[in-house]
């Protein structure tokens, strides 16, 4: 069918079968992201050490894009330093929201494939928030 480009195979797969769903053990921080416009909600729990994000899990109620974004975010930031995790979030958001910044973020090649999968969303402004909501919550959890 037409118009499915927003729904990369990886996104579909992770929305159906998330790999980082749940609550992390011995969480050091939690945060919640809400999109009141649609009712999407992402609850994060994470365990941070000196080295950075040691473990992270999410409980997500929302659309396929939000589900997959939360899951692929968890994958991307696990093992990263706090600074690196936040930088990933910035680049991810730039990729989606700032047409000019996007290219350089993509070119810089810092973003893992799991995050690049959301690129086609750029032309679908009303859905951007679905993808960025988990990152907003992460920003809070790491603040």
């Amino acid at each position, binding site marked *: *069918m*037409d*118009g*499915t480009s*927003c*729904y990369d195979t990886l996104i*579909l797969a992770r929305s159906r079968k998330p790999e980082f769903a749940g609550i992390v053990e011995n969480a050091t921080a939690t945060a919640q992201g809400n999109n*009141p*416009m*649609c*009712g*999407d*909600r992402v609850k994060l729990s994470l365990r941070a050490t000196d080295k950075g994000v040691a473990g992270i899990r999410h409980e997500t*109620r*929302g*659309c*396929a*894009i939000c589900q997959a974004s939360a899951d692929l975010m968890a994958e991307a930031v696990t093992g990263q330093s706090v600074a690196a995790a936040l930088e990933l979030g910035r680049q991810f958001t730039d990729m989606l929201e700032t047409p000019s910044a996007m290219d350089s973020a993509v070119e810089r090649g810092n973003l893992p494939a799991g995050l690049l999968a959301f690129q086609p969303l750029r032309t*679908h402004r009303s*859905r951007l928030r*679905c993808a960025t909501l988990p990152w907003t919550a992460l920003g809070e959890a790491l603040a």
Partner: protein
Amino acid sequence: MNISEIRSQFPILSQKVHGKPLVFLDSAASAQKPDVVIDSMANMMRSEYANIHRGLHWMSERATEAYEVARSRVASFLGAASREEIVFTRNSTEAINLVAYTYGSLLKPGQVVLISEMEHHANLVPWQMLRDRTGIELRVTPITDDGDLDLDAYGQHLSDGKVALVAITHMSNVLGTITPAERLVAMAHDAGAKILLDGSQAVVHRKTDVQKLGADFYTFTGHKLYGPTGIGVLWARRELLDAMPPFMGGGDMISSVTFEKSVWAPVPAKFEAGTPAIVEAVGLGTAIDWVESIGYEAIGAHEAALTAHALRVLPDVPGLSIVGAPRERGGVISFTMEDVHPHDIATLLDRNGIAVRAGHHCAEPLMHRLGLTATARASFGIYTTEDEIDVLAETLKRIRQFFV
């Protein structure tokens, strides 16, 4: 009713979206506007515009006349007892807030405003704000699982005689439910309460006669009635308007002003501070003429046929559930699909040219009551065709296949 002739008055409907013919099923959010409405506004601005009321020159007199004729059109459209009972506002939301600020200020702590579980935020948040300002009580009367008002519960909520004002929708923008307005009015009045009906959706689908309904306040919004944005209507009984303090202060709403004290102008001017949406009022008048030239009988029959058709074909989509089964409904259908989020439905429909809404439809507490966070909603207008509903159903089947 000749649909293709009607559609030809809406050039926007022959657009392509993402390369697909547009199927616009979001009229309950806002309807498209026929050429006559657009032309009447453009013509007024191009050759008949001036500020109203305050001018002694001919152009101002002519513009005033056009604005006041629009008021008279609205009065006859609603069956109001007089044109002075028609107050122009920006939209339904402002009309309800106006009542909450002004009539609301006459209520005493402990008196009750009674709303229902299926209200749009526009008919909920203003009353919460009133409650938090003044200490009135806000009560919520429940709906049945089918999406009808529970009249027994409604009666019970009214029974302690504390309810000063009932504020209930005349048609739900989520479930399509048409509420039994005459019953609601009679029961409210028996309990000594006044009643406001939110007609934002209802006036689009059926003839409204506020005097027959017996209501005390009635509100609607221009942009859903094939009219312009920026214009809405509050109707209220003259004696209520007379008793209410003004809402906003400024030009044209006063009879005299000194620094010490202002004397209010008679209604409706008292509630129309400042330069109103003149061109938009004229556009609304044209929209009403246009709707009435088609006639509610034809409109009602067309929309009933569309709704019946949709209720027939949509359940064939695997995993699809229609939300609510009210006794009487207008051309609004909410649905969900197993394992597919309404937003993903809406996005893929959009990519196939079909515009529907998805979300809580500004009725979060209703969603909560239904155990949902969001639905997808298809809504029909005068220009909607059965073919479009078939395209919707077929596309939904493909979406289902894609996701599951």
